[in-house]
């Protein structure tokens, strides 16, 4: 469990590591999706090519776009690209770095799909069965069949149970040939991808390594800065909400005391702590009023200065552009409001 926890923490430690994790999961998911997918060649002359190439190329495109969609850095990149310059200059090298790193990660799952598809062979068999060289592999001089009919017969090669062209070309021969071509293509593709990856990784330090380090640092910085800003805003919202609710209850209990005819009793010293925690609400009617008032008349998004933890922030927060009002003024409105509650 410790190992798992370490791995988990490592992956979460920064956005890049997290994205590597997602990338790996998507690659596995793409292999799993291929094996779960029920390949179903139509075995009709023009449909075969469309279907086969469609299954070969459309899911990789989907996976590539999905790799971008799932990457949180996309909105970060777009934001950084579109923000007004303000007092902070924009560095195109950082943007390029972010884009390249996202694109590289997004290419892994499509590459896995294409490799698995080619190595399996069903797609190429389906797409190119009408292009099998009948002259070399079969009996091209078989009489009585027009080119169109030959194509129809060849189109049924992937569907063994309805294939009726055994005299023209043996089914096993054609399938074996097409599968061989497909697997050769598959291995070449795998080799090409790994060579490219190797070259990119090994040649990059030979060119502009210093600039690369700089771009990487600042792109991490933008990511961390954005996260910290979001966390700070959340913390602030939490504190704001606490104080707002506290002031709401205080305002309510003061109003109710004012509305009642008898003077407020001072709580005995020993019950002071509990009474304070009860927020001045000590019976069912008052609580109901508080709940109704919470729904009908939420307090304004403006904290009163005395209650704020630090005195400076009081006037700066014009949550809704309301002019700062004196505390007693809203209370008068609230007292009148209670008359029909």
């Amino acid at each position, binding site marked *: *469990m410790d190992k*798992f*926890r370490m791995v*988990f923490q490592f992956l979460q430690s920064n956005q890049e590591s997290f994205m590597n994790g997602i990338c790996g999961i998507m690659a596995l998911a793409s292999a799993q999706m291929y094996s779960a*997918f*029920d390949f*179903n*060649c*139509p*075995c009709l002359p023009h*449909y075969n090519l*469309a*279907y086969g190439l469609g*299954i070969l190329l*459309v*899911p990789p*495109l*989907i996976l590539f*776009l*999905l790799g*971008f*969609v799932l990457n949180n850095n996309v*909105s970060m990149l*777009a*934001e950084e*690209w*579109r923000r007004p310059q303000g007092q902070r200059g924009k560095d195109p090298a950082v943007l390029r770095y972010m884009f390249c790193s996202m694109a590289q990660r997004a290419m892994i799952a499509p590459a896995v799909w294409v490799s698995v598809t080619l190595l399996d062979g069903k797609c190429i068999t389906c797409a190119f069965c009408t292009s099998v060289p009948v002259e070399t592999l079969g009996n091209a001089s078989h009489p009585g069949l027009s080119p169109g009919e030959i194509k129809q017969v060849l189109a049924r090669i992937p*569907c063994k*149970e*309805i294939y009726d062209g055994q005299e023209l070309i043996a089914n096993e021969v054609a399938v074996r040939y097409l599968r061989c071509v497909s697997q050769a293509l598959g291995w070449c593709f795998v080799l090409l991808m790994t060579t490219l990856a190797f070259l990119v990784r090994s040649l990059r330090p030979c060119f502009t390594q210093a600039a690369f380090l700089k771009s990487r640092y600042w792109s991490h910085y933008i990511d961390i800065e954005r996260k910290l800003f979001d966390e700070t*805003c*959340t913390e602030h*919202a*939490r504190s704001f*909400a606490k104080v*707002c*609710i506290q002031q709401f*209850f205080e305002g309510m209990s003061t109003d109710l005391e004012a509305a009642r005819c008898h003077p407020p*009793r001072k709580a*005995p010293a020993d*019950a002071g702590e*509990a009474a304070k*925690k*009860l*927020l001045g*609400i*000590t*019976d*069912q009617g008052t*609580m109901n009023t508080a709940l109704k008032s919470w*729904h*009908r*008349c*939420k*307090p*304004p*998004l403006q904290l009163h200065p005395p209650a704020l933890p630090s005195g400076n922030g009081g006037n700066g927060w014009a949550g*809704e552009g309301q002019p700062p009002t004196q505390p007693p003024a*809203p209370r008068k*409105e609230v007292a009148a409001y209670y008359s029909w509650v």
Partner: protein
Amino acid sequence: MERFRMIFQYFHSNSESVMNGICGLLALASVKMYACFDFSCPCLPRYNMAYGLGIMFVPPVALFLCGLILNRQSLVMLEEWRRPQGHRKKDPAVIRYLCSSIMQRAMVAPVVWIIVTLLDGKCLICAFSSSVDPEKFVGFANASPVQVQQLLAKVPCKDDELLRNNTSRKAVSRYLRCWSQALGWSILLILIAAAFLARWLRPCFNQATLLQARHWSNYIDIEQKIFEETCCEHSRLFAHKCILHFFESMRQEIKLHSFILPREGEGAEGEEDLLRGITDQDQVNKLLKMWYYEKPPLDVSQSHPLGRTWQGHCHLSPQSRDQWGDDSGADIFLQNPNPKGSTPRKT
């Protein structure tokens, strides 16, 4: 177990992660549901289309509604939309943001169901087997129209004796499945491309407004949670005080009615405090009965301070005082119902 706890903690760290987690779980549940569902095409001319399209569209509606129900933000949004303005202005941008975020998450599971259905193909084969052009398929070209319709309707059923091992049936099935899978992949491509464009282009429009709307929608959620926590804490204290009052009043009653002199000055005062003067089986039984039949009023204000006799909230009328020792008197409490502010008892 620790693994699950860590994963749980990660997702719980903020409410967006929680909702993403629920969204993902619902999507997985929808795939699992489809795999477990035993699709059974009726193979009759008009029923096929109804069944096929029904299976394709009705569960997504249910999943969509589930996605709305399970999302906490939908209640937050509804409340924010419907609350009276009061002292706090309403910001339509916040409501729009909440609405769009809820809809996006709720749409994931239905879309997953529809795409899995299309990629599997059974629904479309069932629904559209009667609509296929029979001229394209050799086995059906020579039959009369009515017969053709019947035969085509039976295509989805592999075990039907008329069409078993019929190559044309397999050809029709294959043809429809090909279309179904092509449709599924195309829809998936369009949706993912739309999501991709939305992610890239959103910062180009009104980014500052979006940041504000996101912050305030988060704030509303946090505020509601903190309000609920405050109310919970308050009700805990309230209940504590209420029960203390109740026990105290019972202790007063027992002191008044029992003939045992109070033992002063004996040791273990702390323990006696905890026992609150209820020290034998009869007293406990009476206390429990009293708690059931006559719960104390919801009022712990200082007008009923501890230590004084219970004024204004009597639960024992003068005549029941004589029956205090009688354990069979469950009806004492019923005879003297205790409305709030009933006749004060004279001590």
